[in-house]
C-alpha cells in the first residue's frame, strides 16, 4: 500500500512528461506554448534524477556516506574545505554555466525548435549529467585530482597528454568564438559598446573597494558594482543620443576585435583582484538574477513559439551554419546537453569542497540538469521570435546580401516572411541602427529576451531590456574570455617550463608577458579571421568549437569508462560507454564532413579551393580579393586543425580500449589510484552548516 502511494506521483509525472513531449513533438502548424517545453523538460529531469541518477549513485558508483572526502581528510581551511551541499552546488553551477548553453540553442534553432530541444533534454540526462557526476566521483576518490592527471595515472602518458592538449586548444577556439559574439553584439552600436566598456572600470572600482577600501566586504562591494552596471545600461541611451560622444563608441568590427585582444592581454597580466575576481562576482550575480527572471517570465507569461518544429534547413542549407541535422545539431548545441569542459570543473575546485560523497548526485547530476534547463530557456527565447526576424538577425551578409531589401526578399523566399519596415521598427524599438546580419546569437537572444520581458514590464522599456540583455551576455562572455586567457597562460607556462624551467615560474615577468601574448595571439588570430569573414565567422568557428568541446567530453568519458572497467564494473561500463560511442560517432562524422565535404559551406578544403579558383579567375570584388588569401590560408588551417582533433580523439579511444582489453584478459595495467577508505568523522551538524 505504502509503495503504491509512493509510486503514483511518479507515474503521474511520467504521464505528464510524455504528454508534454508529444505536444511539442507532434504539433504541426499550430502555435505551441512555451509552457510545454518547460513541462516536458522538468518531468524528464525529475524522472532521470529520481531513478537513473539514484541507480548510478547506489549501484554503479556505490557512493559511500561513511567515507571521508578529500575536503575532510585534507581540510586546510582554504581550498580544501568541507562545505554544505547547497553552497557547493552554487559554486559548481556558477562555474559550469557560461555563455555556451545560451548561444548553442539559439544557433541550432535554424533547424526548428524540435531537434535542439530533444537533444538538450535527452543528451543531458543520458550524457552530460552522467559525465559530470562520474568525473566528480572519480576525482573525489582521488584526492580531487584533475582530469589530465587521472588520464595519465589510469590510462597512461598518452591519455594525459591528449587531455592537456585538448584542453588548451578548446580554450583557444572557445575564446575566439566568444570574442566574436561580443564583437558582433557591439558592432556599430554605441549604446552596447559603451555599456560593455563600462563594465571594465566598474569591475576595477569593485576590486579596489574589496581589496583596500573595505577589505573582504564582498557583498557591499558587489552591490555597488551591480548598481553601477544598471546605471551604465541606462547611461548608454544618453551616449547614443549625444552626437559627439556616440562616435567614440560607434566602431567597426575589426577595431572592436583589436580592443578585445588588448583587453584580454591586460586581463591576463593584471593582478586578479583588480579585474578578474570583481568582474566574476558581477557576472555571477547578473547571470543568476537574469536567468531567474527569465524563468519566472516564461512560466508566468507562457509566450507562444513562432518557429516551426522542423525547418527545411535540416538538409544542410541553413543560413546560420552549413551542415545537415545529423551531426550538426549535436555539435551546435554542445554545452546545453554535454560539455567536456565541465569535467575540468568537476575534477577541479568542486571535489575539494564536497563534505560527503552522497552529495555527488545532486551536485554532479543535478548541476548539469539545471544547465540543460538554461539551454531550454535560450531555445524558447530564440523561437518566440517570428522566424523571418530570427533569420534576418542571424544570417550573415555572405548568405543573404548586405542590402536590406535583398535580404528580406531572400529570407521571405524561404517561406519566412519579413519586411524591411518590420526590421526597422524592431531596430528602433531596441535602440539600434540595424538588426540585419547581427550574427553570433547574442543579439537575437537579446531581442527574444527583451520581447519576453517587454510584454511583462511594458513595451516602452524594450530598448533598455535589449541592452540589459546584451550587457548580461557580454559581461560573462568577457569573464570566460579573461579567465580562459589566464588559464591558457598558466598551461602554456607549465608546458614551456618542461623545456626551460625558468619559463615555468608563473610570476617571472618576461615569461608572463611572452606566454600571455602567445595565448592572446592564438585566439586573436581566429577572432580576426572571424571578423573579416563575410559569412559572419560563426559559420566556421562555432562548429570548430563544438567539435573541440565534444572531443574533450569524449576524452573525459574514455577516462571514466576505462576506470569503470578497471574497477571490475564492466557490467555497468555502458553508462559512460554509450554516450562515449555517440560522441565518437558525431565528432568523427562532423570532422569528416568539415574536412571532406564538397559543399563549400561545410567543407574547409572545398571552401578554400573554391575561393582560390575565384581569386585566380578574377571574379572576386577588389575588397574580397584583398582578404581572400588570408581566408584561404585560414580555411586550410582549420581543416588541418580538425584532422588533428580527430587523431587526438582516436588515439585516446584506442588507449582506453587497450587498457580495457588488457584488464578483461587479466593482463597487468596501471594500478587504480583510488585513495584508501578512511572513515568520515564529520558530525553531521557542525560542519554541514
Amino acid at each position, binding site marked *: 500500500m505504502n509503495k503504491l502511494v509512493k509510486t503514483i506521483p511518479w507515474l503521474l509525472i511520467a504521464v505528464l512528461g510524455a504528454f508534454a513531449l508529444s505536444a511539442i513533438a507532434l504539433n504541426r502548424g499550430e502555435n505551441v506554448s512555451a509552457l510545454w517545453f518547460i513541462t516536458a523538460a522538468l518531468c524528464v529531469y525529475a524522472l532521470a534524477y529520481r531513478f537513473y541518477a539514484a541507480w548510478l549513485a547506489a549501484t554503479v558508483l556505490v557512493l559511500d556516506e561513511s567515507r571521508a572526502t578529500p575536503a575532510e581528510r585534507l581540510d586546510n*581551511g*582554504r*581550498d580544501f*574545505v568541507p562545505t*554544505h551541499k*547547497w*553552497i557547493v552546488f*552554487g*559554486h559548481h553551477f556558477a*562555474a*559550469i*554555466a*557560461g*555563455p*555556451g548553453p545560451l548561444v548553442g540553442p539559439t544557433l541550432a534553432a535554424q533547424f526548428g525548435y524540435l531537434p535542439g530541444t530533444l537533444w538538450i533534454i535527452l543528451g543531458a540526462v543520458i550524457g552530460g549529467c552522467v559525465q559530470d557526476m562520474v568525473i566528480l566521483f572519480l576525482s573525489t576518490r582521488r584526492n580531487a585530482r584533475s582530469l589530465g592527471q587521472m588520464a595519465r595515472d589510469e590510462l597512461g602518458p598518452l591519455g594525459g597528454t591528449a587531455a592537456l592538449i585538448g584542453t588548451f586548444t578548446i580554450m583557444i577556439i*572557445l575564446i575566439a568564438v*566568444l570574442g566574436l559574439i561580443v564583437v558582433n553584439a557591439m558592432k556599430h552600436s554605441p549604446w552596447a559598446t559603451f555599456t560593455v566598456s563600462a563594465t571594465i572600470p566598474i569591475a576595477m572600482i569593485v576590486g579596489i573597494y*574589496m*581589496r*583596500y577600501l573595505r*577589505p*573582504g*566586504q*564582498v*557583498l557591499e562591494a*558587489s552591490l555597488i558594482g551591480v548598481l553601477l552596471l544598471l546605471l551604465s545600461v541606462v547611461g548608454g541611451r544618453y551616449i547614443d543620443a549625444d552626437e559627439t560622444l556616440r562616435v567614440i563608441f560607434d566602431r567597426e568590427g575589426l577595431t572592436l576585435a583589436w580592443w578585445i585582444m588588448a583587453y584580454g592581454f591586460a586581463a591576463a597580466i593584471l593582478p*586578479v*583582484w583588480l579585474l*578578474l*575576481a570583481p568582474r*566574476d*562576482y558581477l557576472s555571477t550575480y547578473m547571470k543568476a538574477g537574469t536567468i531567474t527572471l527569465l524563468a519566472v517570465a516564461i512560466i508566468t507569461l507562457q509566450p507562444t513559439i513562432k518557429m516551426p518544429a522542423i525547418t527545411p534547413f535540416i538538409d544542410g542549407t541553413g543560413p546560420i551554419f552549413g551542415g545537415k541535422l545529423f551531426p550538426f545539431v549535436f555539435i551546435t548545441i*554542445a*554545452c546545453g546537453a554535454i*560539455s567536456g*569542459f*565541465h569535467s*575540468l*570543473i568537476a575534477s*577541479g*575546485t568542486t571535489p575539494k569542497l564536497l563534505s560527503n560523497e552522497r552529495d555527488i548526485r545532486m551536485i554532479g547530476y543535478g548541476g548539469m540538469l539545471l544547465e540543460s534547463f538554461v539551454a531550454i530557456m535560450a531555445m524558447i527565447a530564440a523561437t518566440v521570435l517570428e522566424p523571418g526576424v530570427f533569420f534576418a538577425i542571424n544570417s550573415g551578409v555572405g548568405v543573404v546580401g548586405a542590402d536590406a531589401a535583398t535580404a528580406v526578399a531572400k529570407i521571405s523566399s524561404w517561406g519566412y516572411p519579413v519586411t524591411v519596415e518590420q526590421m526597422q521598427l524592431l531596430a528602433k524599438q531596441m535602440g539600434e541602427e540595424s538588426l540585419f546580419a547581427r550574427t553570433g546569437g547574442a543579439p537575437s537572444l537579446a531581442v527574444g529576451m527583451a520581447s519576453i520581458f517587454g510584454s511583462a514590464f511594458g513595451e516602452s522599456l524594450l530598448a533598455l531590456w535589449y541592452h540589459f540583455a546584451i550587457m548580461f551576455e557580454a559581461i560573462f562572455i568577457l*569573464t*570566460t574570455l579573461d*579567465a*580562459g586567457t*589566464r*588559464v591558457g597562460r*598558466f598551461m602554456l607556462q607549465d608546458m614551456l617550463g618542461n623545456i626551460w624551467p625558468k619559463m615555468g615560474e608563473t610570476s617571472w615577468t618576461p615569461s608572463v608577458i611572452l606566454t600571455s601574448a602567445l595565448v592572446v595571439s592564438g585566439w586573436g588570430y581566429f577572432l580576426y579571421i572571424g571578423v573579416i569573414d563575410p559569412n559572419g565567422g560563426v559559420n566556421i568557428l562555432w562548429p570548430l*568549437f563544438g567539435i573541440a*568541446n565534444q572531443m574533450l567530453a569524449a576524452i573525459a568519458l574514455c577516462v571514466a569508462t576505462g576506470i569503470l572497467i578497471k574497477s571490475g564494473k564492466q557490467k555497468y561500463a555502458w553508462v559512460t560507454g554509450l554516450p562515449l560511442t555517440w560522441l565518437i560517432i558525431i565528432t568523427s562524422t562532423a570532422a569528416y564532413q568539415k574536412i571532406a565535404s564538397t559543399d563549400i559551406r561545410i567543407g574547409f578544403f572545398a571552401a578554400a579551393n573554391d575561393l582560390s579558383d575565384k581569386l585566380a579567375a578574377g571574379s572576386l570584388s577588389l575588397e574580397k580579393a584583398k582578404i581572400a588569401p588570408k581566408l584561404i590560408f585560414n580555411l586550410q588551417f582549420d581543416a588541418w586543425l580538425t584532422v588533428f582533433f580527430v587523431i587526438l580523439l582516436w588515439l585516446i579511444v584506442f588507449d582506453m580500449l587497450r587498457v580495457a582489453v588488457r584488464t578483461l584478459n587479466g593482463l597487468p595495467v596501471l594500478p587504480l589510484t583510488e585513495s584508501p577508505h578512511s572513515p568520515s568523522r564529520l558530525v553531521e551538524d557542525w560542519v554541514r*552548516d
Partner: protein
Amino acid sequence: MLSSFKKAWRLLRRLSGDDAYEQYLTHYALKHSGNDEHPLLSKAEFFKQWQDEKWNGIKRCC
C-alpha cells in the same frame, strides 16, 4: 518568516565569500589556536591570500 530571511542571507554570504574571514577565525580557533607557526591573519591579509588562491586554476567554463 524572519528565520528564512536569515537563512537566505547566511546562504548568500557563504556563497559570495562575504563571511570567509569569520569561517577562517572558526577554523583557526579550532585547529591552530596558540600555535606560533601560524600567526593569526588580519582581515585584509587573509582576504588577499584567499582571493589570490581562489583564482588559481580553471574556474570558469563555457
